[in-house]
């Protein structure tokens, strides 16, 4: 378990003090895939670097299994870092070493014998699906393949925690998905706690079970992904969930509006609104919509309008048939 208590960090940039982190408190349980999302400059990178003390916080504690790692000596900290490994946006492989030697690198640092390190590295190449790349140099691989090697390297010392710092931000959507699949797989098979730093909603939706939203150095919302995303309360969360802004439609006092939120519950090829019209003869007018399908599941929201109270109530009833579609009436004074 990782407990983060009252974490604060300030930088001074050209005479100005920037609060990168302000009194951050979080608890991350073993086996979690915990997402930390925020816009650029929200303090995500500083936050993740405080977890392995690459960045020393000004105040507060990071407890890993009850041990305050801020209190450890540099030497003890190096041992902790074999347990809390990291992957990066730019992969950061050693460019003058082969892939196999890159994976051996953390084992070399830990003083593992050459033969054993090699054996372990070959296993890991298998795990990340690149057994034929052992003798290739990183420059010969694609971005996605480099990230796989970086993941293998991060797993070499059998860590308990894997930190992912914008690990998919430099990759195309398809590669991103395959890397996230791998991370999910590793989490499931090896029980490694994963902390994912990202600015991409889709990354959180795809793999995380818990999420914290970081805004200007503060955690403004946290909890289960489905809860936070289906009902965002803070402005920062709303910006992330509805990036295009949540409708600016002229008021019409007579109509009744319904906000429908899709949260991966249904396949994107089910025509819900059409079904509602055919089966129940409820005619909805779509005022605004921002939906997308990720992994053949629908995400996003729609704003529907109905002519009267009765139809809207029937629509709500009808939508209750679909699990975890959330439908809520939008009051006019909202």
């Amino acid at each position, binding site marked *: 378990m990782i407990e983060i208590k009252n974490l604060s960090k300030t930088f001074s940039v050209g005479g100005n003090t920037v609060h990168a982190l302000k009194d951050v408190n979080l608890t991350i349980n073993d086996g979690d895939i915990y997402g930390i999302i925020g816009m650029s400059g929200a303090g995500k990178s500083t936050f993740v670097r405080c977890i392995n003390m690459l960045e020393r916080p000004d105040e507060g504690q990071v407890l890993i299994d009850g041990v305050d790692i801020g209190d450890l000596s540099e030497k003890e900290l*190096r041992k902790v870092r074999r347990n809390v490994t*990291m992957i990066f946006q730019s992969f*950061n492989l050693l460019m*003058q070493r082969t892939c196999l030697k890159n994976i051996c690198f953390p084992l070399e*640092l830990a003083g593992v014998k050459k033969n054993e390190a090699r054996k372990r590295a070959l296993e890991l190449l298998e795990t990340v699906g690149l057994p034929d790349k052992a003798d290739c140099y990183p420059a010969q691989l694609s971005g996605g393949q480099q990230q796989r090697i970086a993941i293998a390297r991060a797993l070499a010392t059998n860590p308990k925690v894997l930190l992912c710092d914008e690990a998919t931000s430099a990759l195309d959507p398809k590669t991103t998905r395959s890397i996230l699949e791998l991370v999910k797989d590793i989490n499931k098979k090896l029980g490694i706690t994963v902390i994912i730093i990202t600015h991409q909603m889709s990354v959180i939706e795809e793999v995380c079970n818990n999420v914290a939203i970081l805004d200007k150095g503060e955690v403004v919302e946290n909890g289960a992904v489905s809860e936070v995303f289906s009902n965002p309360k803070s402005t920062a969360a709303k910006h992330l969930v509805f990036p295009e802004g949540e409708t600016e439609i002229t008021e019409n006092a007579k109509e009744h509006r319904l906000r429908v939120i899709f949260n991966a519950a249904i396949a994107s090829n089910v025509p819900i609104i059409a079904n509602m019209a055919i089966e129940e003869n409820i005619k909805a007018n779509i005022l605004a919509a921002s939906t997308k399908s990720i992994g053949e599941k629908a995400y996003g929201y729609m704003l529907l309008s109905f002519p009267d109270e009765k139809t809207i109530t029937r629509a709500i009833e009808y939508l209750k048939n679909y699990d975890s579609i959330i439908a809520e009436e939008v009051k006019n004074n909202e």
Partner: protein
Amino acid sequence: MNNAFSPEKIQESIEILKTEIPFALWETFYVTILSTLFAVIIGLPLGILIAIGDNKGILRIPKPVLHILNFIINILRSIPFLILMILVFPLTRAIIGTTVGTTASIVPLVIAAFPFVARLVESSIREVNPNIIEAAQSMGASPFQIIVKVLIPESIPSLISNFTIAITTILGYTAMSGIIGGGGLGKIAINYGYYRYKYLVMLIAVIILILLVQIFQTSGTRLSVFSDKRIKHK
């Protein structure tokens, strides 16, 4: 100069070259190689220290120490080599026992070259991607491990190419050391060309020096490119 290329002169020059060149070539070669070697032995660690000393992430070196090191390097680099050779006479005598001769010229050459090498190494080490260093730190690398396993191996192509610059510069300096009695091609050029007006001998000695620089530079560049695994070789 008018009759420098007369048949007799050419015949005479060929005789001189035949007897002098092989040994001079050997002297130039061994002085250059040994001086470069010692300059690297001193300059490499010095350059690394300066490059990482101000980077709080890797190693903390007290600021005054860094300032002093930088100061010494700058001073040594600003003294013209001709003057430096004479300035270090006491040191040369203390180490070698004499101030004249080929071996004695190694001392001023090393003193002149190591600050230069240190600066070259510093620039190579600074080129290493800081993200890679951070990655190594995140895996629990100690400062020593970062130097030996990350900084040096990652900058090998750049180091080779910078050492090539160093070796060609030192080769030029060895020629100058002919003035204070250092042996080699420089001595031949000065003794025959300057003191005895045998321009042809001087010309040929200079041509050989040019060829040596070409050979060092070309093989250094090839080696640097070949060693760089960031370049996709066929």
